[in-house]
């Protein structure tokens, strides 16, 4: 559940450099509790670096970063431990000795209830990604960080996985930060879209559309044009490519 704090994440003046080259450069960011935020940007713009900082995986930073204690990450690759059965993967790192039932409940939530005893090598790409999602959700996070979790999935599986994430977020009400380079995905899922450029949040817009959303919505199309322009892609280019 979301905390009663209005701000789930506060970042002030965050800088992270690699070999003297700042990838995140004096970045300010506030995420509101319970909101679904999409972070867009070109590859290499530092969005994954920002996510790793928020996850607490990268501490070589300067600036202020306030994040909820309970947070979970789902990466682009499922990163399941191949030597642990699915349910043990889900419970990995949880304090105490939780029962298999706990894992099975989380797996059932992502539609993987019957695969709990399987080895990760026997899962399909979509199944493995859902298992990774269950592993994040079982921690009951206040902040869920998703690092292009649909990037490696095929188109059909991706649509299903996106719907699943939307559903889970609505049920859980946690704060979500989704890092992606897919504008349509951001507009389909998020309340708010951010564009990262030159190490800072360069553009910030609310996505105030009714759910469930359809890609054909004219308001959505307008926002897409706007976001693509922020990312340096003109709508004409896209149309040309599509043709």
């Amino acid at each position, binding site marked *: 559940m979301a905390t009663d704090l209005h701000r789930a994440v506060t970042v002030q003046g965050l800088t992270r450099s690699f070999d003297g080259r700042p990838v995140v450069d004096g970045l300010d960011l506030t995420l509101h509790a319970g909101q679904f935020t999409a972070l867009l940007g070109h590859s290499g713009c530092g969005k994954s670096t920002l996510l790793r900082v928020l996850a607490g995986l990268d501490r070589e930073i300067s600036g202020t970063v306030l994040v909820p204690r309970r947070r979970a990450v789902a990466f682009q690759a499922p*990163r399941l431990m191949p030597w642990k059965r699915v349910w043990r993967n889900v419970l990995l790192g*949880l304090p105490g000795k939780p029962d298999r039932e706990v894992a099975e409940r989380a797996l059932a939530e992502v539609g993987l209830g019957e695969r709990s005893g399987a080895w990760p*090598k026997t899962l399909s790409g979509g199944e493995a990604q859902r298992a990774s999602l269950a592993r994040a959700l079982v921690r009951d996070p206040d902040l869920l960080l998703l690092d292009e979790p649909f990037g490696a999935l095929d188109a059909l599986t991706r649509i299903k996985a996106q719907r699943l994430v939307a559903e889970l977020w609505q049920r859980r009400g946690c704060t979500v930060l989704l890092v992606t380079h897919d504008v349509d995905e951001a507009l389909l899922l998020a309340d708010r879209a951010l564009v990262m450029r030159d190490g800072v949040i360069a553009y910030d817009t609310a996505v105030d559309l009714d759910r469930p959303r359809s890609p054909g919505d004219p308001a959505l199309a307008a926002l897409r044009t706007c976001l693509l322009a922020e990312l340096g892609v003109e709508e004409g280019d896209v149309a040309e490519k599509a043709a």
Partner: protein
Amino acid sequence: MTVDHAPPPTAPSAPDISVLPDAKVESLTPARGPGRGFSVPRWLRRAVGPVLLLLLWQLSSAAGVLPADVLASPGTIARAAGELIVDGTLPHAMGVSLRRVAVGLLLGGAVGITLALVSGLSRLGEDLVDAPVQMLRTVPWVGLIPLFIIWLGIGEAPKVALIALGVAFHLYLNVYAGIRGVDAQLVEAGESLGLGRWGLVRHVVLPGALPGAMTGLRYSLATAWLALVFGESINADAGIGFLMNQAREFFRTDVIVVCLVVYAFLGLLADALVRTLERLLLQWRPTFTGQ
């Protein structure tokens, strides 16, 4: 499984076939899967080669092409083996040799794995342990036999030490490489799941190093037998090597071959043991098993 193939090769479709060569079309016939027709079991097929070789050997011996003091015939060897087993010489020698290998393996394994953990898991340990071990590794261990004899005498100690040495190096190298080869992404995932340092070692690093450790175990077993042969060929008073040396004095090629077969058999047994261990411990691994 039944699959519908478009034109069944029956009379009505016969005229079409004449068109095929011109049309750059190829008819794909279903592969002969298992269960189609009669097939010889794989183990039987694989047994044919060795059996033929044995037959050839026996025939050459019987024909006098292969004199007994060069190489005894398989029949003579089998008889010698039977005698050695019945009078208890062979079982006793095997017991002595096996004990040497077991003790050497345990000692060397403990040392090798401990050092690998120290240098694999900590930077400081790596700096302190890895360089000297890599340096000593370049010394051919067989060449240490004279030193071992001076240090440890001619009893069991130098033989066990030789085996332990060979085992320790192989296990060290493979376990260390296994630890350092663990996927950094998995370690990061473990960190993001809230695993502490010990938790990461236990749930991520050590299981990840297991395939390397098993490879090391297999190599070190092979080395252990080799070290045993070397160790026993010098002034042994019991064991298979002693049996062999004795046979050499009397030109008993049959007994020598029996001893060689026993060495091979023990090596095979050890390999089977590791394979079983691998099947049990590494069943999670997505490996290509061959067709």
